[in-house]
């Protein structure tokens, strides 16, 4: 029997993991990454002469459950035509029996790798607004993401923001699976990374999906019926905190926005992603935000900061005028 070196083991492992693209019109180029359920490869679309990303099921699918889930993910993304959501091109089954779909190849980096390159707070907030726009669009189409985290957000070469990995998405208008009030399996990612292992544990409520640290409390409890748009608001609040964590002293109003978005009680959070995005926009415009009731002094100070250029100009004018009067009076 042939001796297999460590390098040979790695190559064999990758060869066995690689999608069987024979007869598909795609040529395998390289592997881009692996998530909880699928691996993503860069492939060449020989018919159109372009590179696309191909996501294929990477786990054993004994009863077709995961294949169906990947198919569902592709269908959900296909419904969401938005600049902030990567478009799906094709879905199908490979000769090796694994379900796959192809999508636009995003040239860029994950938000967690890109954060340090974002400028100050305003740039972080403008990026965050784009994330909110994509999620809000999905909510308007009755789709919850349920796994929003920096690792699932890509920043493209030209600053475009794309919300990725809709594998755990939930359709709000779909029927809740039967038996949701019985003991069932839960699936979550242990580490805040899209490359983390998935686990299954029992819960007395229902299906739990998400990533600790970014998952809303009701989602972590497996309280299926309580998981709504506010669960994504919580995750976005956690993403906002992630963006601002190295920004030094965070202004109180901004800190309050983060706190309101990540309130333990869903009823204390923003009612929608749009409300959260509005508060961010108000903050950027120097206007009062709903999350932070201001006193008179704070309001005056914010007004002064916002109009500091005009105040300085008027002050300079008055000083000059006073000096002129004094000079004339001599």
């Amino acid at each position, binding site marked *: 029997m042939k001796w297999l070196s*460590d390098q040979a083991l790695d*190559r*064999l*492992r990758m060869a066995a993991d690689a999608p069987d693209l*024979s007869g598909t019109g795609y040529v395998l180029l390289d592997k*881009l990454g692996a998530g909880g359920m699928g691996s993503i490869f860069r492939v060449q679309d020989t018919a159109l002469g372009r590179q696309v990303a191909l996501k294929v099921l990477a786990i*054993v699918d*004994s009863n077709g459950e995961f294949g169906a889930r990947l198919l569902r993910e592709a269908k959900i993304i296909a419904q969401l035509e938005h600049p902030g959501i990567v478009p799906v091109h094709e879905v199908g089954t490979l000769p090796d029996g694994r379900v796959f779909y192809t999508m636009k190849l995003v040239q860029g980096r994950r938000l967690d790798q890109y954060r340090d390159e974002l400028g100050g707070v305003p740039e972080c907030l403008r990026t965050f607004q784009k994330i909110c726009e994509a999620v809000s669009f999905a909510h308007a189409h009755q789709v919850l993401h349920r796994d929003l985290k920096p690792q699932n957000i890509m920043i493209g070469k030209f600053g475009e923001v794309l919300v990725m990995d809709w594998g755990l998405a939930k359709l709000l208008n779909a029927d809740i699976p039967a038996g949701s009030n019985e003991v069932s399996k839960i699936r979550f990612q242990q580490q805040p990374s899209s490359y983390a292992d998935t686990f299954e544990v029992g819960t007395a409520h229902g299906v739990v999906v998400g990533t600790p640290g970014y998952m809303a409390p009701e989602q972590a409890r497996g309280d299926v019926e309580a998981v709504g748009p506010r669960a994504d608001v919580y995750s976005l609040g956690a993403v906002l905190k992630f963006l601002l964590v190295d920004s030094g002293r965070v202004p109180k109003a901004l800190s309050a926005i983060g706190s309101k978005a990540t309130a333990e009680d869903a009823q204390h959070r923003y009612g929608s992603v749009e409300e959260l995005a509005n508060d961010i926009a108000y903050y950027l415009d120097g206007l009062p935000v709903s999350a932070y009731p201001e006193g008179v002094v704070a309001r005056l100070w914010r007004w002064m900061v916002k109009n500091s250029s005009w105040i300085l100009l008027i002050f300079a004018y008055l000083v000059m005028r006073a000096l002129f009067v004094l000079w004339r009076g001599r």
Partner: protein
Amino acid sequence: MRDNGDLRGQGQFPATRWSLIVAARSAVPEERQRALEVLTAAYWKPVYKYIRLRWDKDNEQAQDLTQDFFLRILEKEFLARYDPQRARLRTFLRVCVDHLIANEDKAARRLKRGGDVQIFPLDFESAEGELQRIEIPSPDSMEDFFEREWVRSVFSLSLERLRQECEQRGKQMHFRLLEFYDIDEAGKELTYEQVGQRFELKTSDVTNYLAYARREFRRVVLEQLREMTGSEDEFRREARTLLGVATP
């Protein structure tokens, strides 16, 4: 029992789930014997190497202890104690090896059995040779080492079985291409076109042959794994260890 992959052919179980675990717990001695053979084929090299390095035993001691370990599986029917809900079979076996060696009365057992008498004819020479070719792991990474050796063992057995199947189906070239392109050092930097020139095949044939061999290799590995795991959950997790975790 030689290291030639024949075990898998003789001891092959029907394609039912968890057949090895079920057979290992069977009241029928022949069933248990077959389970032991399959188990031994996949695990004896990892166990031997683990004993050599983790417990710092010389090769004769390690051979005795390896024999002793697999004998105990059959004698004591200790696989009946294995609970798939609590641990992977691989982890269970490694811990059992640790217990066996930590237990000091094993020397007496070996003497009672007759010292270096081999119950199973295992090819320790080849295992010893392999040990000389691998990097010695640090003491705190012995668990990873055991896993790596288990992967090596399962892949080796799977390749041997795939070779036999390809021969039976007249697809020797498919297997040869897999060996050349995915295992041999000589093939790893070549393009499909260059491989085609070397084997006098069209590039499209290289693509299709390799796709077939890889697909079949994946299938064989998963079939072997299914026999060697105790639950669907363990099967999935071990499949991930074997096939799905490599990232560039």
